[in-house]
């Protein structure tokens, strides 16, 4: 009889551990299938029926709609090019090439996936809105304080995430390379 209860207890603990592991994999998703390039990362196949089970569970649990495969490529950054977490209080310079040659948008989000804009300020930038200066690489500033040129305002409290969406892009998620993507450099913190 004790043996039976021992087996039952083992099964119960196993079941709990299994559920715990699933909760953990949604909270801090494993890197299976993730492609990284500098500060940017993407999950290939996420917007298709062939998405891997972990990416799919993650999207379902968080209620996120990924980009469709025909729609383009989505690149996420939660750290700068030196590996430090993006902090809303700091000012960042995003500079460099944007691959694909097509339409793109860059948006900043808080930890809950809300665009971190205050009132009527814009919460992102599109390729048509971005100002370019001759002979200079495209530069976008992210800061809680107003900046000259291309500026995306962010909420000064907490961390934030960036999403660069390449629309109509034929760029393969596996072919992205850090040198073909913008760098994220911290300019200063109060």
């Amino acid at each position, binding site marked *: 009889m004790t043996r039976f209860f021992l*087996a039952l207890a083992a099964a119960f603990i196993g079941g709990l551990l299994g559920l715990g592991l699933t909760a953990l994999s949604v909270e801090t998703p494993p890197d299976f299938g993730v492609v990284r390039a500098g500060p940017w990362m993407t999950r290939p196949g996420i917007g298709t029926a062939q998405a891997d089970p972990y990416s799919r569970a993650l999207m379902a649990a968080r209620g996120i709609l990924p980009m469709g495969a025909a729609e383009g490529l989505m690149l996420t950054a939660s750290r700068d090019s030196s590996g430090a977490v993006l902090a809303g209080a700091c000012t960042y310079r995003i500079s460099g090439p944007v691959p694909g040659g097509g339409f793109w948008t860059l948006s900043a989000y808080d930890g809950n996936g809300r665009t971190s804009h205050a009132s009527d300020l814009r919460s992102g930038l599109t390729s048509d809105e971005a100002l370019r200066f001759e002979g200079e690489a495209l530069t976008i500033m992210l800061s809680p304080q107003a900046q000259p040129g291309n500026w995306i305002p962010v909420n000064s409290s907490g961390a934030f995430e960036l999403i660069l969406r390449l629309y109509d892009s034929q760029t393969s998620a596996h072919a992205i390379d850090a040198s073909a993507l913008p760098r994220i450099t911290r300019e200063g913190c109060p």
Partner: protein
Amino acid sequence: MIGPIASLLIALLLTGIVHLASVLALPWLAPRDAFSRLAELAQDNAMTVVAQDRAAEALPYSDPAVATAICRYVLDRGPVRVRLRTGVGPMSLLFLRKGAGIYHSLSDKAATQGVLDAVVATPQQMEAIIERDSDDDAVQEIRITSSDIVGLVVVHALVPTHSQRPQVERSLRQATCEVESLDD
């Protein structure tokens, strides 16, 4: 004989099975996944343009530079046709099913003469559609087979600059999503 080693093995085995099963089942069981959130904003077999603040509220990490229209298709009375004119910026159509997520997507590159024309049908309805095809006319519409009766079509239209949003939303309002009869 169930000793400590056997108990450990049972626990490990169950950890693995329960973990794998729950990861695989999550997209079907998650009550607040993107499908459920979008379905709340949609009407059956009719296109609804969603205001930007409502879309941003409903879906985390949505692109603020996108205008959205949604249609919940129900194929019990026949296939559903989705038609829209391409606009100023890139446009795409996403086809979603509960659990499967985005099972198909189209960009406006698939449009003919500025019109994206797609038909969603069950496998049985699709057979009937193909049977009625004449050999002479090339098929213009894009055909998508849905293994579920119910699903979502999401239209994403990019707003190139903030001031163009009213224009993009106006053109999205022309988009249609309607049941088609297979009888005539």
